[in-house]
């Protein structure tokens, strides 16, 4: 089961642009594993541009992170 969240977060990345750490308010989650990474065109008919998605495993669970034009958001939380 998953929940779509779409909440802005701060993400620290490594030299290749992969997320290393998620800062969500006062909570800080360290990324243990990058499970998957892909690009999406989004809702192109509504003018959405290309964005990147990272599925990561942290100490708090599995998240899908969305990065569009440098802005990061938690796209989805996996229960």
């Amino acid at each position, binding site marked *: 089961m998953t929940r779509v969240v779409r909440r802005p977060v701060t993400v620290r990345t490594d030299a290749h642009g992969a997320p290393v750490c998620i800062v969500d308010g006062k909570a800080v989650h360290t990324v243990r594993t990058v499970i998957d990474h892909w690009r999406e*065109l989004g809702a192109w008919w509504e003018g959405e541009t*290309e964005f990147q998605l990272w599925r990561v495993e942290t100490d708090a669970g599995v998240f899908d992170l969305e990065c569009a034009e440098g802005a990061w958001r938690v796209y989805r939380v996996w229960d």
Partner: protein
Amino acid sequence: MRWFAFGRAVGVGWDGDDTLWMTISNERVMDASVSARACGVEPGQSVHTAAALVPGITVQPATEGPSRAMRRLWRMVNDVTPRLETMGEDGFCAAGSGRTSETALHALRAAARRWLEERPGVRGLLVGVAETPGLARALVEWRKCGELPASWEQSLGRHGRWLVSPRLKPSSAARNRCTGAHEAAESWWDPLPVEALWVLPAEVREMLLRMGVLTFGELEKVGETFWRRMLPGLSWTQLRHQVCVGRLRVNYPPPVYCRTWAAAAGEVCPPEQLTEWLEPLIQGVGRELLAAGCGTRRLGLCWRGEGGRERMEMVLKQPTADLQVLRAQTLRLAAHIRQPVERVSLFVRDFTSLPAEQLRLLAEDGRVISADPAAHALAEVLAQVERRFPGRLQKGLRPGFRELRLARVMEARLAVGSGNERHERMAMP
């Protein structure tokens, strides 16, 4: 015609070669081959009793998950209809509707027969076909604990039975009618034995039998107080709905259709030449979607090149199985491939069942065809005439009674209107 088929298989707990076998758990028989069942072995029996009945029977521990045999049956059913729910590890519920549903039903029956013939003496199958999922299951449960009227039952090989509700028989005048509460007085399912009511716990069934309530129809007489006392969470209306209507929750086919192209070893394909290699992938995926009767909401390309493995996906505005849309969107994704690739996969997922009307408009090659087979045949003939005598064919429609009557009424009204006008003109000074 709309139908639902509920199937329950036996002898699918083990995939070995022996004919006489049983699977056990906690010293009890869980499943047995049809041949072993014919010798008296039954699920729930103690292992010693079963072994005494069939000396030398192969004993296997029961495993978790569906067997290969059952997975194969699901695949075969899924080839016939995309609306398939797997039920436990030995059952399924499938549905068909629209113009091609009768053909699908014949294909389903042929598939069931074929599946049974693959391992004679091992597998058995009961398939109930009715107007709702609940009633299809009721037929199977009924047959398991008693005899059905002979005209409802057909053979499906030696160990299979095909049970058809009287409303779905070709001769039935009541065919295609909706199932509703008002039809209770003439329901064919009223004689369904209480023992076959899978929605009731065993102790409630026993209690009902002790009370002299033997059939489903007689349950109407049981007051709501009984249900409240025996089954606090279930009212008679809910129970009736579960048995007479039921529900199909599609959980099959697999969630992704994928086609892959790979270059010869050591070679790569430049991005500008990729289009020609993508075309067969698009066609293959499109065919699979049409066969499954699904439209996809998400499409993606996954490729491997000098820069490593990359994947790009896109959501589609509407679920589609249309080749032209698939082609256009695949090429839009492929435009993001900038390096030579060794291997490229096209995949689609997030499916939605397409309405029958929409499916009928999509031919195998993506052409739009007529929804009506007769009209399609006529269109082909007209196209031949048009090719032979270009411009000579006059196409039109002959008016029916309503159109002719409307035309006469309009003419009459016009005549009366013009008469009045003349009269008014004459009356003016």
